[in-house]
């Protein structure tokens, strides 16, 4: 192994994926866990992989306490921190502190200045406007005054009325929020003030900043993402697009598909390939402008008439990175790439070693997020103990990522989301991928019982139903 040692500052399946990437790259690693996660496979695997007798799993009080992470990093001589997604992955202060301490640590992600600049939706919007990249009509600075907010909302309602929008509405968003949190839709000006105050309170409580964004609410749009990979040497490549439109009521993604549109399954009213090309070009332009130097996702909405609007930039690895990698081929490489490995290599200063023209795309990939939740009751989370967890064996058609053990029972921790597994399906065509995804669901067996003996509830039926109408408006 090399001298580098990575502290994996995350939990669940992403911790396992990072661990696997470390093993491929011949890097040492250490994981952290909270008492609630003691039974997670990421802890068991970290122990298993250390046949040399070195301890590689440490109990901490909280994943959100940076002092805990730095203390473990120092105690174990880690040289880098991989934040995964969520937690500290988009926290520029954390990334800056990694470099500012006496014992410096490599933050596996973009430079902290880039996280700061693109982490704010408002700043991203301003930058995008400057570069001529289309953004959603609305504010490009946080609003702190109720009177100003009402004025903007009134204007947005008026302009939608002028455009002949059938059900005009605006979105009120916590400007420092993310991941679908702190967003509400308002249908008329009369209820605006109430929603504005609620979001302002929420934003203050959760993000420490009561700034609010007000935007026109677009309808019948698709949520498109562009996966970029950049190095510290100015190289910028993309791994195509993804369609992440299928989301739960809490704006949490459930089914993702790469590429973003497929004209063979739907007659779009616009030239789908040209639209995807446009969002990729704009994304690359912004990445080059800010000197982006890691993996990142540019999130877009594309309306029914094919108009793209930049939504935000996620300066981290995404849950769904696997489907972009699954459809990509890099000339000279036998297998499809791993974006996690590429991200780690890039953080340690490696050159990518390939250009955009070396990357080609093949087939369609679908990600299914298997979650213990009741989709009929507002996606309410289910908690209890899983007694059987059998996912189909990995094959050329699918791979899976999970922190749920299949050889023992597992009680879902009540402190975190009840995500159980990710399945990444690949097919030569979208229809082929869809058939395989259905086959995967059919062969998945999950059993368990809740605190009062009630049967486990998962979203498998919901996922199967949603597969019927992927990629269409």
């Amino acid at each position, binding site marked *: 192994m090399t001298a580098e040692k990575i502290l994996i500052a995350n939990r669940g399946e992403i911790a396992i994926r990072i661990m696997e990437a470390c093993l491929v790259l011949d890097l040492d690693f250490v994981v952290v866990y*909270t*008492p609630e996660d003691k039974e997670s496979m990421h802890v068991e695997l970290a122990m298993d992989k250390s046949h040399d007798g070195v301890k590689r799993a*440490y*109990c*901490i*009080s909280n994943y959100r*306490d940076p*002092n*805990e992470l*730095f*203390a*473990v990093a120092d*105690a174990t001589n880690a040289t880098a921190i991989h934040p995964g997604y969520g937690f500290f992955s988009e926290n520029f202060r954390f990334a800056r502190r990694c470099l500012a301490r006496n014992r410096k640590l490599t933050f596996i992600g973009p430079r902290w200045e880039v996280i700061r600049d693109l982490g704010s939706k408002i700043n991203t919007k301003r930058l995008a406007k400057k570069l001529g990249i289309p953004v959603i009509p609305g504010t490009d600075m946080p609003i702190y005054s109720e009177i100003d907010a009402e004025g903007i909302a009134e204007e947005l309602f008026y302009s939608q009325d002028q455009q002949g929008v059938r059900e005009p509405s605006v979105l009120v968003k916590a400007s420092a929020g993310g991941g679908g949190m702190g967003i509400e839709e308002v249908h008329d000006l009369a209820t605006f003030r109430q929603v504005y105050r609620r979001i302002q309170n929420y934003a203050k409580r959760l993000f420490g900043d009561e700034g609010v964004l007000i935007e026109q609410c677009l309808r019948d749009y698709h949520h498109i993402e562009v996966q970029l990979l950049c190095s510290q040497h100015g190289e910028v490549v993309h791994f195509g697009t993804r369609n992440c439109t299928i989301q739960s009521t809490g704006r949490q993604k459930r089914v993702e598909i790469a590429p973003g549109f497929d004209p063979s399954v739907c007659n779009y009213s616009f030239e789908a390939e040209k639209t995807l090309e446009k969002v990729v070009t704009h994304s690359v332009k912004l990445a080059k402008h800010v000197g982006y130097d890691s993996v990142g996702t540019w999130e877009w909405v594309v309306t029914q008439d094919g108009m793209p609007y930049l939504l935000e930039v996620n300066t981290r690895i995404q849950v769904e990175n696997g489907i972009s990698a699954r459809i990509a081929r890099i000339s000279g490489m036998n297998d499809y790439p791993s974006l996690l490995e590429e991200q780690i290599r890039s953080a340690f200063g490696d050159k990518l070693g390939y250009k955009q023209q070396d990357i080609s795309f093949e087939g369609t990939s679908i990600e299914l997020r298997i979650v213990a939740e009741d989709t009929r009751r507002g996606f*309410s*989370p289910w*908690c209890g103990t899983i007694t059987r967890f059998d996912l189909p064996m990995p094959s050329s058609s699918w791979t899976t990522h999970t922190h749920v053990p299949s050889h023992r029972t597992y009680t879902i921790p*009540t*402190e*975190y*989301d*009840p995500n159980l597994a990710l399945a990444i399906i690949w097919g030569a065509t979208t229809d082929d991928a869809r058939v395989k995804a259905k086959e995967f669901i059919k062969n998945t067996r999950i059993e368990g019982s809740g*605190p009062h003996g009630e049967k486990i509830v998962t979203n498998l039926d919901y996922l199967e139903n949603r597969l019927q109408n992927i990629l269409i408006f």
Partner: protein
Amino acid sequence: MDTNLNTILEEIRQNPFEKQVITTPHTGVLTFSVKEGAQVKGPGGKWLQRPGSLLFTVERELNSKKIFSPCAGEVSWLHTELEGSFTEAFEPVLTIQYRLTKEKVIERILKQVLTVFAAPQRARYFLSPDFSAAMEKNACPAIKPGDEIFIMSLMKRDTILPYSGDGGVVQNVFFKSGSIVDEGTPLIGVCPPENLESIQKLIAQVRSEWE
């Protein structure tokens, strides 16, 4: 209410001790300040503003956190191998054996004599803002079935948990708002209004009889 206080007190008197395991609050390098068998003091002062005896310190990121004894008693066990080493969070460090205080005895008795509303499942519980305000106004606020008195936070979602059980007055809250409570652990103790006087007498009796 047919509570034989003398029987309960007698049971407690037969073994008036409890043990409290002290764990590390977070990771860090640990240094002991006490030895096994040492007598330690609990917090003191009118508002418990004086900390108890210093038990150990945990140093992390050049910051030392001092851990003081939460009760008066004797250090009955010490994990001596941890001295000077990097310790994980929630690692048991020492045990203090202490004699039950009046408040602890009252709490034990109340759990037996009051109608207890227990946590339906392991989750983080909060008192609802309305109920917290009612508690501030009146130490024993009245409740009836259906009153929204708890917020159960589970898997990042908050759910209002209404009270179910006989109406009455809330005599005691057994948990700290915002803490994780295991399934079946009492959250509040409710007393029918007609029994309130006898419960308060019972509390007064413990206060006078328990040395």
